């Protein structure tokens, strides 16, 4: 049976194989995005001593599907004098990089769509392209509010990209590779081998920049309900708006996954090297304790939860404070820590830089 299935898979044309793999990544991702919106409303609800959505389906579980249906049936209003093509292409430009970046994300050892050498650079390049969706949306809407909102969020995204890139340089120095899979394998050993410990300041900078990059609270001045109407997507409605929404959540999941991969050893188990080998031989429990895709998902889910937690607890930053944090706090921190990492590499501080 297994043999027949492998034979059937290999008999498929290459293009069909690749497309099936892409579907296997994107379908769970889209479901995860839909249910992240649900989780957000539920979690923030409980944090604010409310119940959250509980009407549609059992305990509100069908809420995201109802939302999607509602948005799909709504009209996409195109403002007068808006640039029609750019107006409609902007949401696509926002979501495409967020989805394409998953091509180089490894879920388990070897479980990756494109195992390319310069994987981390590819990720950086794609995340930097997401800003076009925002700028074009703001400009093509032919609305002052949208333009102002897009300027704010685009300036913020570019500023935090620098800190993010510098934080990644530290990871590259420690791992000695640009390939995401090899970066994870460089953290093999035990919990102490993870880059979280030697690169802790860079980890903080990376995650804070990630929150700012995705325009999430407390850095969500692009939305800023109390200051500007809604930012760059104020003129969008129906599915065009929903695509922006999806892009934001897809980016959140991507940043969480990358933090897990680069600093917390991705699919590696935290019990590795601590429990004796015999523990991993126990039938079901051993599989759970051993490294695998479930650890990657747990770590990603944890960081995703942090995004929601931040939104429920932190007050919004003022715009000049955001810029100050990015340029005057995070970038100097990364530069100092890159120097420290450089010294550590030079003298070979084990087990990370040896």
């Amino acid at each position, binding site marked *: 049976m297994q043999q027949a299935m492998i034979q059937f898979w290999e008999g498929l044309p290459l293009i069909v194989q690749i497309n099936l793999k892409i579907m296997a990544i994107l379908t769970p991702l889209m479901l995860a995005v839909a249910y992240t919106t649900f989780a957000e409303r539920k979690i923030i609800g409980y944090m604010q001593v409310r119940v959250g959505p509980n009407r549609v389906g059992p305990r509100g579980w069908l809420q995201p599907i109802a939302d999607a249906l509602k948005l799909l049936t709504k009209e996409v209003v195109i403002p007068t004098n808006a640039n029609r093509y*750019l107006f409609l292409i902007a949401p696509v430009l926002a979501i495409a990089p967020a989805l394409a970046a998953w091509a180089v994300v490894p879920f388990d050892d070897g479980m990756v769509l494109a195992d*390319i*050498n*310069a994987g981390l*650079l*590819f990720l*950086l*390049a794609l995340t*930097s*392209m997401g*800003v*076009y969706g925002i*700028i*074009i949306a703001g*400009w093509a809407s032919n609305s002052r509010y949208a*333009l102002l909102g897009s*300027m704010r969020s*685009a*300036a913020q995204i*570019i500023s935090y*990209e620098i800190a993010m890139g510098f934080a990644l340089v530290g990871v590259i120095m420690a791992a000695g590779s*640009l390939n995401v899979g090899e970066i994870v394998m460089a953290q093999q050993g035990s919990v102490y081998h993870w880059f979280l410990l030697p690169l802790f300041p860079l980890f903080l900078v990376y995650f804070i920049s990630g929150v700012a990059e995705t325009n999430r609270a407390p850095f969500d001045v692009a939305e800023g309900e109390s200051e500007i109407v809604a930012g760059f997507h104020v003129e969008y409605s129906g599915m065009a708006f929903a695509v922006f929404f999806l892009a934001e959540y897809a980016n959140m999941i991507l940043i969480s996954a990358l933090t897990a991969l680069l600093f917390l050893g991705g699919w590696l188990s935290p019990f590795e090297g601590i429990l004796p080998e015999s523990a991993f031989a126990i039938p079901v429990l051993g599989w759970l304790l051993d490294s695998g895709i479930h650890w990657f998902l747990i770590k990603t889910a944890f960081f995703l939860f942090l995004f929601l937690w931040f939104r429920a607890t932190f007050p919004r930053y*003022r715009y*000049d*404070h955001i810029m*100050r944090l990015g340029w*005057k706090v995070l970038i100097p921190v990364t530069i100092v820590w890159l120097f420290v990492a450089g010294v550590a590499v030079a003298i070979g501080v084990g087990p990370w830089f040896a």
Partner: protein
Amino acid sequence: MTFEAFLFYFFSVVLVGSAVAVITVRNPVHAALFLVLAFVATAAHWIMLEAEFLGILLVLVYVGAVMVLFLFVVMMLDINMSRIREGFMKLLPVGIVVAVGMMVVMAMVVGAQVFQVEPPVPASADYSNTEALGQLLYTEYVYPFEIAAVILLVAIIAAIVLTLRKRPDTRYLDPAKQIQIRREDRVRMVKMESEKK
């Protein structure tokens, strides 16, 4: 036609088309966006030449940062196209002379022997463009590389100094001072007996 040839021609058409569009479209924002498209198509060409580091860097630096700032400026400026086109007929003869001159120079260069190269041979599977570039930059070209870095640093500092000015009439709050405020500086707890009626 192989798949690679198809990709090559596809991206070439996109590149040439968008490059022409950059100088022919009327709207400056559209022109900037076409330039972005041209950069992306060029990056695709470089990646097909197995120079993936350069290709991705082109997207990262030019598409992700430089052109975004370009777009900012172009969007914020209120460019009056009719005033720019005013001297068009007057400058046309000069423009034609310059264009023809450039065409001749280009034809001489592209037609020369230097550019009649063999198609590149595919590198072996373990070849890493990033590693090869790093080896070259940090060994053979380490001094030019560092000098270039210092020049860029000087440029950064110069740009910051040029734009750094304090306007006395703005009511500016220093965020660094603001976040150092503590509760004790601002709030005074007063304990009072409630008044008797």
